[in-house]
């Protein structure tokens, strides 16, 4: 199975890899995993006082599609409010990266990671 050019681009030059400093309470962290393939994804968002996501970072263990999906969403969430970030759907990720049906679960993982990160941030901030 061949990866699309966009997947390869994100896979070879992943955007926003890494983590924010521990204990930073402007950061929300989402961790999710896909049992079927063993992929693990950690996505962090850094939120400004205005409620807009300023920066995002990720660390993913998994296949090229999982890495590309998380790399892509770190770009997409920047500049969005938390509620806007929650509207990102896995179908849009899959479409943008031209993921084949067997790799759709990678885009679901990325969508769930955003939700988990937003939820974590909201929990920290009541």
């Amino acid at each position, binding site marked *: 199975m061949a990866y699309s050019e966009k997947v390869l681009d994100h896979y070879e030059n992943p955007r926003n890899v890494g983590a924010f400093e521990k204990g930073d309470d402007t950061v929300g962290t989402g*961790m*999710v*995993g*896909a*049992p*079927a*393939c*063993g992929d*693990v994804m*950690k996505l962090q968002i850094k939120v400004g006082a205005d409620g807009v996501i300023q920066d995002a970072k990720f*660390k993913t*263990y998994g296949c090229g599609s999982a890495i590309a999906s998380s790399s892509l969403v770190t770009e997409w969430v920047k500049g969005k409010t938390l509620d806007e970030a929650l509207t990102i759907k896995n179908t849009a990720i899959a479409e943008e990266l031209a993921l084949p049906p067997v790799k759709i*679960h990678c885009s*679901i*993982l990325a969508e*769930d*990671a955003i939700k*988990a990160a937003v939820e974590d941030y909201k929990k920290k901030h009541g």
Partner: protein
Amino acid sequence: MPFDFSQSHFVLFGLPTTFALDRAVLDTAYRKLQAEFHPDRFAAADDAQKRLSLQIATRVNEAYQTLKSPLARARYLLQLNGVDTQEDTNTAMPVDFLMQQMEWRETIADAKTQRNVDELEELNRQLAEEITELTVELAELLDEQHAWSDAATAVRKLRFLEKLNDEIGNAIEAVLF
């Protein structure tokens, strides 16, 4: 050739419907049914009989493969109790478990880069211990507590550990060959 296709795999082999399993009893019952319904025995029978014997032999094999594997057996037992293990859809695992998974992956990747087979073998041993512990926990959740939802989480965890097992195996192969 009377055969009840609606009976469970456990009933088929005359086993109790539990996660705990006497492997010797399963193997003996399997061989007996396999011999009884083997398509070779129906070479002279009419087409309907041949087809039926093939269907039964296929079912017996499927049942054996399902019960033989702890992961598949647990999944099947939950299914009998109307619980879906959601291995393809549920991505919400306990955070500490996922952190551990990341650490495992990093350690495996490092050992592979350093071509350190001893380290990989040691990881394999540690992982085997974790799989055993989780299997014991699964038996308790399924057979004693009937805690189906927790058992489904344990099945998803086991799925991750089996994947790690494959990765360590692949890493060792990549270094050695």
